[in-house]
């Protein structure tokens, strides 16, 4: 065994030197990877093999030495930069996991639509008696669905942007005038940013988002504790959006129509709870990791301010 060591010292690190005639089982013994019975048997077998026993003892000693290296780091304070990086990584994981769940849900919805569409194509050949009625049901479902979808999208948008540290919004509250002009233009409706300072929430800013039927807007607020809530708004259907009376018309023109439509709905199905309501063909959703009562109070404040 001693003679093979000479070649192990060759300066070429990647040229495999001839191995000392050891055995993987010896390493497994030194590393404590053998079941007790097997280990005992091997020890007995190596009773007369001085070189093997010497090597194994040496490796075990090496393990102890290696394990004692830089033990201090296991108890030392971790630098802030690394801590921040770890939190960032964990945040990414949480967000990605959330997207994964939602993506899966979206995929199954899409699959359902595709299947429905394919089925529809097949059925057109032979008009079944119940066909028309089925289609009518589907239409009714679809008609009801946009509001729920809207609420879901609001919740997802909240979940996506709420944890953002560097870019929570596209336009910050310091440029509020520009923010309102810009989003009003993109959403085709004069918007107003509700003030939630009495409730303890300052405006952070806003961003433009894509929705099912066009542009949507998100306003973000934050309280002193760093808790964030988002107000998500946009048209629910493209056709009625163009027919919307609010396009430049005085907002008090349709209070009667909205009073009935503005029933608050609470939802907990998304990543965060929220209240949503519609007004004309416009939808609003207020999302945040808050209690139902707190959210309701905030939603009420938002609703009242948007009336005038």
């Amino acid at each position: 065994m001693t003679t093979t060591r000479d070649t192990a010292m060759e300066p070429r690190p990647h040229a495999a030197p001839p191995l000392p005639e050891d055995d993987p089982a010896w390493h497994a013994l030194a590393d404590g990877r053998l079941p007790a019975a097997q280990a005992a048997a091997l020890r007995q077998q190596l009773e007369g093999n001085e070189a093997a026993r010497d090597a194994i003892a040496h490796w075990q000693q090496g393990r102890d030495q290696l394990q004692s290296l830089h033990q201090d780091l296991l108890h030392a304070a971790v630098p802030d930069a690394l801590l921040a990086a770890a939190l960032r990584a964990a945040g990414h994981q949480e967000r990605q996991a959330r997207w994964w769940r939602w993506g899966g849900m979206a995929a199954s919805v899409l699959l359902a639509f595709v299947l429905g569409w394919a089925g529809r194509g097949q059925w057109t050949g032979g008009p079944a008696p119940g066909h028309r009625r089925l289609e009518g049901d589907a239409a009714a479902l679809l008609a009801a669905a946009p509001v729920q979808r809207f609420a879901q999208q609001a919740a997802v948008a909240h979940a996506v942007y709420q944890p953002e540290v560097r870019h929570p919004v596209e336009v910050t509250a310091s440029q509020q005038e520009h923010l309102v002009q810009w989003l009003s233009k993109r959403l085709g409706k004069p918007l107003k940013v509700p003030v939630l300072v009495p409730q303890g929430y300052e405006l952070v800013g806003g961003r433009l988002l894509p929705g099912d039927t066009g542009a949507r807007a998100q306003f973000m607020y934050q309280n002193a504790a760093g808790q964030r809530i988002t107000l998500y708004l946009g048209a629910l259907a493209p056709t009625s959006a163009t027919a919307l009376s609010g396009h430049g018309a005085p907002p008090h023109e349709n209070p009667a129509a909205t009073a009935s439509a503005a029933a608050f709905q609470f939802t907990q199905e998304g990543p965060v709870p929220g209240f949503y309501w519609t007004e004309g063909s416009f939808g609003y959703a207020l999302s945040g990791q808050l209690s139902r009562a707190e959210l309701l109070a905030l939603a009420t404040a938002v609703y009242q301010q948007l009336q005038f």
Partner: protein
Amino acid sequence: MNRTQVVEQLPGLRRYARVLTGDAWAADDLVQDTLERACGKWLLWRTGSDLRAWLFTLMHNLYLNQRRAMPALAPLDIEDVRDQLPGAPVPSDDALDLERCLQRLPADQRAVLLLVAMEDMSYEDTARILAIPVGTVMSRLSRARARLRVLMERTSAPAPSPSPATAAAAPKPQPQPAALRRLK
């Protein structure tokens, strides 16, 4: 997953990176890079699987890539030039010797040895982390241990008379019992 799970891995990652790279700054850089890499790779992590092993995998990929990217920066080993140095090498303790010898192992052998012996990982986990077969783990482990032993014996050979014993007659270091005992 909750955030503390990742934070809890930090001390272990730092220690491992410290011994792997042999340098405190490089180690924390490597950990930082690993965490940043994790951000974009979470989809490849199966929720509930071994977070530590997965982070080690990322770290190794980065480490080996970095080493491949800058072979020109391979540090000059003091052992190779110590006979040409004016002064005697600084008196070193056993841990320093060991760290220096570890750095003289080829990176892939060092990785196997550290995962198995320092981190006490199973051969299977080590194979998974390094994306190599278990057989390769065993052969690298064997080579790493043999080589480390030689290096350590050479390092702890009596320092006052280095030239004849370690430089001139380097290829033939008689494993003196005295040298072996110093390792303990």
